[in-house]
């Protein structure tokens, strides 16, 4: 059975690495390096995070993208052939919402890839709720989910919401990139 590929993207600090670590059954391969500019934390993902999940014999490979624009070539690399996209945004960081929306729209306008938006840090009191993020992104509420990235059940619920958007055919093929044939992975 071929593994399926899931991409987790979002701005710096959205909780991507945490989300991959929460879901992965294997030790996460992380490509973190010291941040060379002030991004609010010492280390940042520069290529991708990689984790795996095996459910009922079906392997899922989970790739977390870098959050900084300077590594945006990795978005294309990682999304090529992906089953779906999880776009994370921290609900307590409104300064990142516009960036998150731009990332999402850049990816989804180029790849026919099903996606959901996860609004992290829902355990905090002062946090934007999924309905408000949905309004900002111009998405139906069914496509935006609140979560705490360290909670496995929240992660599973988010994946369920994403998988429910997929056709349930025996063969869920990888979507091609719009207007390109490149397949770096």
């Amino acid at each position, binding site marked *: 059975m071929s593994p399926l590929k899931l991409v987790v993207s979002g701005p710096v600090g959205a909780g991507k690495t945490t989300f991959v670590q929460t879901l992965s059954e294997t030790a996460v391969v992380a490509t973190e390096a010291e941040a060379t500019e002030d991004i609010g934390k010492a280390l940042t993902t520069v290529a991708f995070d990689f984790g795996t999940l095996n459910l009922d014999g079906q392997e899922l490979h989970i790739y977390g993208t870098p959050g900084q624009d300077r590594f945006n070539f990795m978005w294309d690399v990682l999304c090529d052939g992906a089953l779906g996209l999880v776009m994370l945004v921290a609900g307590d960081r409104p300064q990142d919402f516009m960036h998150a929306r731009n990332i999402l729209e850049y990816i989804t306008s180029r790849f026919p890839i099903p996606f959901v938006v996860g609004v992290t840090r829902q355990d905090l009191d002062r946090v934007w709720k999924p309905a408000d993020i949905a*309004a900002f992104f111009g998405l139906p509420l069914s496509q935006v989910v609140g979560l705490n990235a360290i909670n496995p059940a929240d992660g599973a619920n988010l994946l369920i919401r994403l998988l429910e958007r997929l056709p349930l055919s*025996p063969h869920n093929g990888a979507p091609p990139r719009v207007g390109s044939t490149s397949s770096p992975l």
Partner: protein
Amino acid sequence: MAIFGDLVHLPFIDLTRVLAHQTGILFLRTAFAGRSVELHLDCTELRGLYLDGFPINESSRMQDVLHGLTTSATGTFEFQPTELTSLTPHLKLTLSELLDPYGETAVPEAQLPHADTRFRSAELPPTAPAHLTASWQQIRPRLEAGASPADVAHQLQLSELQGRELFSRLRTAGLIVPVRGNMPAKPTGRTVEPDVQLAGSIPDRATAPEAGPVRRLLNALRRFTAVAGRA
């Protein structure tokens, strides 16, 4: 519920779109020349406008304040949902119409759409505001199959930055929307509901019908969340 932030990160016009289905008071602490502004909103309607606690009724003064808010570089905001019945609202104006003239406001480069993001015409685009009429007539035919700011900038001999700024304005005016490569959203659960099985009732894998990979993942995840829910 909390809707808060700073206009430096979330432009005022975008903020009003988020609030288009809400009723309550938007507090802006220092967004208008360092002065506090309150907007009493009932969905798309502006029901009251206060500057430093004093109501603004005069049309030209109101436009001054709204113009200031759309062009303000900084200023924190917070929205508090509340019923307006006891707050003596004194206006009944459509906010989006009041803001139409300010769609030309410069947007920081970091907030502009990516040059390669593809957009198409909105399903039912509104009438283009005066400052965008000429551009819209020129660009609209090029958007039928989707086009990016880089595509259009190349065709119209604009710089890439100008293309991104133009698309940002068209989007703010509701004339264009991003192309979504994925299929239209299905009502979640409806398609798969006949196959949904709660934990404990999942058929044995040996006797279960052959399932595709997505169904296998879904079933396993649902079992996991059902177990987590009981724990």
